[in-house]
């Protein structure tokens, strides 16, 4: 069922099969549809063979045996394996581990190996700063990649690179990791993908036609959400500029452990729920506040966590559906939304 009310960028807002209900809900919570404007860009001319992919993210595994986060990641894997139809592949959004130790990464790789479908993965800061990615690369391969699938060009980048704050300070690897573990640490500074990956990205897409459907995947959002918590990627403007020639770019990211949508130019941006814990929304205004989830109830151990699945249509529309472990979504979000 098509929910496109108006193909103009001004009017589009739809939630699959629930356009009427959505309108009522939106009005009930005081949302002006003309302002909210969840819009997809003009679709490319190229056809996409419809398929779905899932996202699992931010498991933050600890070393202790039988830690509760192990079970929560396993629950996410089981949830994805039970999806009908099955996703073609799974993207993991970074932070497999909490402290970056090899045993934590290995534990994560074993749980993720239970997925019935292929896995693509990019690193988070918790995976990286104990050994600067050595163990992660040994398990998962390159952190910068692209591939084509059923007409869509997928890109993965390592967005958690920071300036060297440890050498001059004489920090040990453990101390470096410790600094990076704290979300609000004043020490490391904003992170990004840095020059080499920008060059790689420019080269990767230089021969692609503007109507090529593009999905880019990073740990952190490609927009300035709340830099204090590194809810940002410092060179996101350069990334968006490189990708500006495309009709429609979808960005999916982890790190923020919450439901979230934004749009800048031709790029839509969707966040992933984590499997370890939810993060509060920071003290900033959102352009699309209705895409927030309910405040997590701490007495429900897995509230505010889960997975997500995206169905891409033949015209490169994406239906994003969050699949929380508990009843964490507002009615507005319950049936998914299109990007």
């Amino acid at each position, binding site marked *: 069922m098509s929910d496109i009310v108006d193909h103009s960028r001004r009017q589009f807002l739809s939630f699959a099969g629930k356009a009427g209900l959505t309108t009522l809900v939106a009005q009930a919570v005081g949302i002006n549809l003309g302002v909210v404007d969840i819009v997809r860009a003009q679709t490319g001319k190229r056809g996409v063979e419809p398929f779905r992919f899932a996202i699992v993210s931010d498991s933050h595994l600890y070393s*202790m045996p039988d830690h509760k986060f192990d079970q929560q990641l396993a629950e996410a894997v089981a949830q994805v394996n039970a999806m009908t139809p099955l996703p073609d592949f799974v993207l993991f959004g970074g932070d497999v581990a909490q402290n970056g130790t090899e045993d934590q990464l290995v534990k994560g790789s074993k749980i993720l190996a239970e997925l019935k479908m292929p896995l693509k993965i990019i690193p988070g800061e918790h995976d990286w700063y104990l050994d600067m990615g050595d163990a992660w690369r040994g398990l998962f391969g390159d952190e910068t990649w692209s591939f084509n699938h059923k007409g869509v060009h997928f890109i993965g980048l390592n967005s958690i690179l920071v300036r060297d704050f440890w050498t001059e300070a004489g920090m040990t690897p453990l101390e470096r990791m410790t600094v990076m573990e*704290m*979300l*609000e640490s*004043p020490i490391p500074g904003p992170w990004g993908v840095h020059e080499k990956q920008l060059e790689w990205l420019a080269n990767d897409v230089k021969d692609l036609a503007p109507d090529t459907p593009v999905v880019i995947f990073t740990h952190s959002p490609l927009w300035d959400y709340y830099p204090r918590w590194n809810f940002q990627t410092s060179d996101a403007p350069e990334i968006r500029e490189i990708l500006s020639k495309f009709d429609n770019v979808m960005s999916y990211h982890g790190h923020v452990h919450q439901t979230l949508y934004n749009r800048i130019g031709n790029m839509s941006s969707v966040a992933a729920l984590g499997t370890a*814990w939810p993060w*509060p929304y920071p*003290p*900033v205004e959102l352009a699309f506040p209705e895409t927030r989830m309910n405040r997590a109830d701490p007495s429900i151990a897995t509230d505010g966590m889960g997975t997500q699945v995206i169905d891409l249509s033949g015209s490169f529309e994406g239906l994003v559906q969050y699949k929380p472990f508990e009843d964490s979504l507002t009615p507005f979000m319950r049936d998914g939304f299109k990007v």
Partner: protein
Amino acid sequence: MTTNKMLKIERVLAVSALAAVLAAGTSWARAPFTDEELAAQKAALVESIALGYDLWHGSRADMTTNGLACGNCHPDTAASNPQTFPKYMTMYGKVIPFREMVNWCIENPQAGTRLDVDGDDMTAMEAYAFYLHRGKEITPGLASEQTTPIVVEYGTGFARTPTGIGVDNRP
């Protein structure tokens, strides 16, 4: 002396007496704090806040057995909502103060040992949480929605040795 003149004199005397009492009254209260005293008081408060910052981020081992610290879920004390306590919490089935909510998180998500509610560490936890909610409206009993702490600029914080949030500390 006319009656009017007498009334005026009485009025003047009464006002003078009142002024004298008021003047004397100011000398009965404690003198304003000196700059040095205020600096010392502020330093004591900041030290308590900074201790709370450390505790919030995992500096005290017995607050957790699974590696989790308060800061895992509450960066910058976000969504801890200290200004909304006392309030009814479903896990207790009654109205509780903020410090009891702190202990609930220590004992449940963190699987640790509760703090002495009258101890300096609990005071420090409160000092840190309230410091990052300064200026927020006090609304006891109301927190059906998430509230946020004050906006904190990037790169600010406390010049403390990182305590290793979430570091495995099980023997």
